[in-house]
C-alpha cells in the first residue's frame, strides 16, 4: 500500500467499474458515449498503474503494495493481493494494452459497442486481479472469471467459425483449471486449512504428491501458454476473434500461463519441477522447432502469427525450466516483449483486414505502394517478431539461449535455429503481402493508416525499440525477485 492507499485494489476494480459504467450506456444509440467512457476508463486505469512502477522497490523480493483482509472465513480465504518483480511488469503490460484495444476498436466495432468496450474493460480488471492475487482461491476466482469475457468476445464479434472457436477455447481452458482447483483443495488440506500462496511456498510436500500437483498445474498452465501439444485451441481462437480479442489473447491471456509456472509450479513443487524439467524442455523445444514449420505453411496471416506465438511462448517455458537467472529473466522479457510484438502484429493484420476483409496472404501483394507508412510499421514489427537485434524480440530470445548454453549445448542449438526460421516465415509472409506488384483492384483502393491507427502502432513501436535497445528498466525490477525464486527452487521441499 502506498501511504495507506489501496493502490492495487484501485488498479483491479477501476477498470471493472468503468466497464460496468460502459455497459450501462445500453444500446448502440449511445455508442459514442460508450467509446469515450471506455477510453477514459482505460487511460485512467493506466495512469493509476504508474505509481506501481515508480513506487516499486527493486531491492527486495518481498511482496509490495500488499493488502490483506479476510474474504470468507469458512475456508480461510483472504482478499490478499500484492506484487513482486514478476507480477508488476505483467500488470503494467496489461494496463498499457487496454487503451490501445479501445482505440483500435473505435471505428471497427459498430455493433453492440457498449458490450464490446465494457467486456474488455472488465476483463482487464480481472486479469490485473489474477496477477496480483496472493491467495490461491482469489487467484482461481479471477483466473476462471477471465474466461467469461473472452468467451463472449470471440463468440459475439468473431469471424464465421466463432461459435466453434469460443466453445473450444472455453472447454479447453476449463479442463486445465478444474484440475488445478483440485490441486488447490489438496494443498489447502495439506497446509492445515490455508489458501495462502506464500504458505504453499514453504510447505513440505511428499514427492508423489508433488508430481501429481505438478501435472495438475501443468494442464492448467500449459493450455494457457499454450504448449505443444495442447496449443490447438489457439489458432482457432485467434483466427475467429476480432482484432481486439486477438491482441488480448496474445498479449495478456497467454502470459497467465507463464505467470502460473513462476508463481505456482516452480516454487510450490520444486522437486517435481526438477524431476520433470527435461520433459518440459523437450516439449518447449518441440513447440519452438516444430511449430515454425507449421507457421511457414499457413496461408492465413492471423494463423501464422498465432503459430508464431506458440513458438515464442515455447521460449518462455524453455527459459523457466533451465533453472538459471538468464533463462528465467529471458523468459520474463520474452513474455513482455511478445505482448507488444504479437499485439502489434495482430493490430497490423487488423488494419489490413478492415480494408480488404481478408486474412489470406494470397489476396494481398504490393500493399507498400498504397500504404507506405503502414508498411514501415509492419516491417519493424515483423523484424521484431523474427528476433532482430535492436528490437525487444531479440533480448528475450538471446537471454534464454544464453541460459540454455549453460545447461546443454544442443538445447541452445535447437532454440537458436528459431532466429533463422522465425525470420523465414515472418519475412516471407511480409514479402508476399507488402512487396511486389499491386495484386488486385481491391488493394489498389486501400487507404494508408488513419491517425488513430498511427498512434496505436507508434506507441507499440516505441515500446518494442525501447526494450530492444535498453531493457534495463524492465530487468532491474525483476532481478531480486528472480534470484530469490531460484534460491527457493534450488531447495528440496520433500
Amino acid at each position, binding site marked *: 500500500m502506498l501511504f495507506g492507499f489501496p493502490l492495487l485494489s484501485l488498479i483491479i476494480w477501476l477498470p471493472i467499474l468503468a466497464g460496468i459504467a460502459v455497459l450501462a450506456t445500453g444500446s448502440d444509440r449511445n455508442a459514442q458515449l460508450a467509446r469515450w467512457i471506455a477510453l477514459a476508463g482505460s487511460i485512467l486505469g493506466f495512469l493509476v498503474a504508474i505509481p506501481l512502477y515508480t513506487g516499486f522497490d527493486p531491492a527486495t523480493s518481498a511482496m509490495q503494495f500488499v493488502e490483506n483482509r479476510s474474504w470468507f472465513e469458512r475456508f480461510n480465504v483472504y482478499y490478499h493481493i500484492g506484487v513482486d518483480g514478476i507480477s508488476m511488469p505483467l500488470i503494467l503490460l496489461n494496463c498499457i494494452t487496454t487503451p490501445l484495444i479501445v482505440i483500435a476498436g473505435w471505428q471497427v466495432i459498430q455493433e453492440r459497442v457498449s458490450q464490446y468496450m465494457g467486456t474488455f474493460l472488465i476483463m482487464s480488471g480481472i486479469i490485473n486481479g489474477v496477477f496480483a492475487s496472493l491467495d490461491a482461491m482469489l487467484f482461481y476466482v479471477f483466473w476462471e472469471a477471465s474466461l*467469461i469475457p473472452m468467451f463472449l468476445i470471440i463468440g459475439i464479434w468473431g469471424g464465421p467459425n466463432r461459435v466453434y472457436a469460443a466453445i473450444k477455447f472455453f*472447454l479447453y481452458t476449463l479442463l486445465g483449471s478444474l484440475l488445478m482447483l483440485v490441486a488447490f*483443495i489438496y494443498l489447502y*488440506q495439506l497446509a492445515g486449512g490455508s489458501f495462502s500462496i506464500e504458505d504453499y511456498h514453504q510447505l513440505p510436500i511428499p514427492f508423489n504428491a508433488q508430481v501429481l500437483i505438478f501435472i495438475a498445474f501443468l494442464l492448467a498452465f500449459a493450455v494457457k501458454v499454450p504448449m505443444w501439444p495442447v496449443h490447438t485451441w489457439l489458432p482457432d481462437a485467434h483466427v475467429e476473434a476480432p482484432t481486439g480479442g486477438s491482441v488480448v489473447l496474445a498479449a495478456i491471456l497467454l502470459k497467465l500461463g507463464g505467470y502460473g509456472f513462476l508463481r505456482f509450479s516452480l516454487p510450490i513443487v520444486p522437486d517435481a519441477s526438477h524431476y520433470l524439467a527435461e520433459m518440459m524442455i523437450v516439449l518447449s523445444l518441440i513447440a519452438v522447432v516444430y511449430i515454425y514449420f507449421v507457421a511457414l505453411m499457413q496461408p492465413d496471416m492471423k494463423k501464422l502469427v498465432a503459430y508464431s506465438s506458440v513458438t515464442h511462448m515455447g521460449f518462455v517455458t524453455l527459459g523457466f525450466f533451465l533453472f538459471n537467472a538468464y533463462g528465467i529473466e529471458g523468459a520474463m522479457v520474452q513474455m513482455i516483449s511478445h505482448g507488444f510484438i504479437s499485439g502489434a502484429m495482430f493490430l497490423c493484420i487488423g488494419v489490413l483486414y478492415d480494408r480488404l476483409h481478408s486474412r489470406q496472404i494470397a489476396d494481398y501483394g504490393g500493399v507498400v505502394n498504397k500504404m507506405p507508412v503502414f508498411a514501415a510499421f509492419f516491417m519493424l514489427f515483423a523484424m521484431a517478431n523474427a528476433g532482430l537485434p535492436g528490437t525487444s524480440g531479440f533480448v528475450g530470445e538471446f537471454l534464454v539461449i544464453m541460459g540454455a548454453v549453460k545447461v546443454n549445448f544442443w538445447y541452445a542449438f535447437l532454440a537458436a535455429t528459431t532466429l533463422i526460421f522465425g525470420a523465414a516465415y515472418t519475412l516471407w509472409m511480409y514479402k508476399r503481402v507488402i512487396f511486389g506488384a499491386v495484386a488486385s483492384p481491391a488493394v489498389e483502393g486501400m487507404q494508408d493508416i488513419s491517425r488513430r491507427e498511427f498512434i496505436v502502432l507508434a506507441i507499440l513501436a516505441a515500446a518494442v525499440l525501447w526494450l530492444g535497445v535498453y531493457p534495463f528498466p524492465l530487468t532491474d525490477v525483476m532481478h531480486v525477485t528472480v534470484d530469490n525464486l531460484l534460491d527457493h527452487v534450488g531447495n528440496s521441499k520433500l
Partner: protein
Amino acid sequence: MNFLPPDFTPAYSEIFLLIMVCVIMLADLAAGEKRRYIIYLLAQAALIGCGLLTFVSFSAETTYTFSGMFVDDAMADILKIMVYVTVSAVLIYSYSYVSERGILTGEFFSLILFATLGMMVMISASHFLSLYIGLELLSLSLYALVALRRDSFAATEAAMKFFVLGALASGFLLYGMSMVYGATGSLHILNVSEAIQDGVGNHEVLVVGLVFIVAGISFKLSAAPFHMWAPDVYEGAPTAITLFIGSAPKFAAFAFVMRLLVEGMGEMAADWQGMLIILAVLSMAIGNIAAIAQNNIKRMLAYSTISHMGFLILGFISADWNGYSSSLFYVITYVLMTLGIFAMIMILSRSGFEAENISDFKGLNKRNAWYALMTLLLMFSLTGIPPMVGFYAKLAVLQAVVNAGFVWLAVAAVIFSLIGAFYYLRIVKFMYFDAPETDEPLTVKSDVKVLISANCLAVLALGIFPQSLMGLSLYAIQNSM
C-alpha cells in the same frame, strides 16, 4: 392417568399454515373466478405469517414435542424459512403464467400450500412415521399439481408416471423402515441411532433396510439410477409446477437425508458411504452426459438437476459436519439458481406459446440485454464458474470430499462438471451468438421483473460475498448435531 397436552409451541408455524390452507379453501368458494388474486394474497400472507412465527421462535436449541415425533432445531428453522421464501417466489413467478393458462384455481394454491406443509413436517420429523406422513403429504400434492392441466395429454402422462414411480419409492422406503424397526425395535430416530450405537439388532437386517431406505431417498432426490421420472415429469408438467417441483422440495429432500441417514443411521456411515459414492458418480455421469443430447430445455434442466443431486450427495460422503454443511450450502444455491432459470423460461413463454426448446433463447441479447445478462449469470453459476455462487457450492463440496480422502472422486466430479459446462454454454451461445427468431418484446410484470433481477444478482452477490450463506449453513448443521 392424567392427560398432558403436548407442547404445541415448536409446531406453531405448521398449525398456522394448516389453518390458513383451510381458510383459503373456504375463501376460494366465496371469491370465485374474478377475485382469485385475493386467494393469491392470502397464500402469500400465510407464508409470511409462517415466516414470522418461525423467525420469532428461532433458537439454537433443540426441542422435541408430540412424544418426540417432532423436532425443532436450528437446521429445521433455517430450512423452513428457505422453503417459505422459495414458495413465495414460486407464487410470484408463476402467477401470470398460470392465469394465462387457465389453471389459476383455488386448488393450485391449496395444493402448493399442502405440499409446503408436507415439507415442513418432513424437515421437523424425528420419527419414521412423521417423516413418512410429511413425505406423502408432499408427494400426493405434487402428483395432483402435475395433473392440474387435465386436458393436457403430456401433463396427465407425467402425473401418472410420477405417481406410479413415487408410490413404488414410498413402498421401498416403508419396507426399509420396517426392517430397521425390526432390528432396533423403535421408530424414533434418536432411539434407532442409540440402538445401532449399542449394537442392538442384527447388522445384516439393518444393512438390508438401509439399502431400501437409500433407494427410496434417491427416488425422491432424483439421483441415478432412480432418476427416470424426473425428465418426463419436468417436461410434462406446466412450467410453473416444474419450477415448484424443482425448487422447494429439494430442501425437504436434504432434511430427509439428514434425518434418516445422518441422525438415524449415522453409526452406519461406513455402510452408506459406499452406496452414496455409486449414486453420486452415476448421477453426475448420467445427468451431465444425457443433458448434452436434449433440445427441450425443461428436459435438459431435469438432467442437470440429476447431476446437481450427484454433487449434493458427494457432500454427504465425507460423513462429517463439514460435508453436511457443504451439502446444505449446495442445496440452497441450487434452489436459488433453479428458481431463476425456470422463471426465465416462463418470462420467455407467452399466452399461447410455451418456451420449451433451448432454441427459444436465441438472440435474447438482442431482444432484451438485461434478461440475457441475468440468464448468463445463472448459466455460469450452474456451470460452476466464479465469481458466481455455484462455484463456491462446488468448492465447498469438493473440499469436503478431498478432506475425507477421496481425491479421485473430486477429480471425477470436476471432469463431469466440465462435460456439464458444454450444455450450459450452449444456452449462452443461443442467447449471445445467434440472431433472434422473433422480435416480439418480452412483457414482464414489474414484481416479476424486480424479483428475477434480485434473484440473479443474488447469484453474483453471494458469489462475491459467500461468507454469509456459508456461515449460515455451518451454523445450521453445527447446532443440530
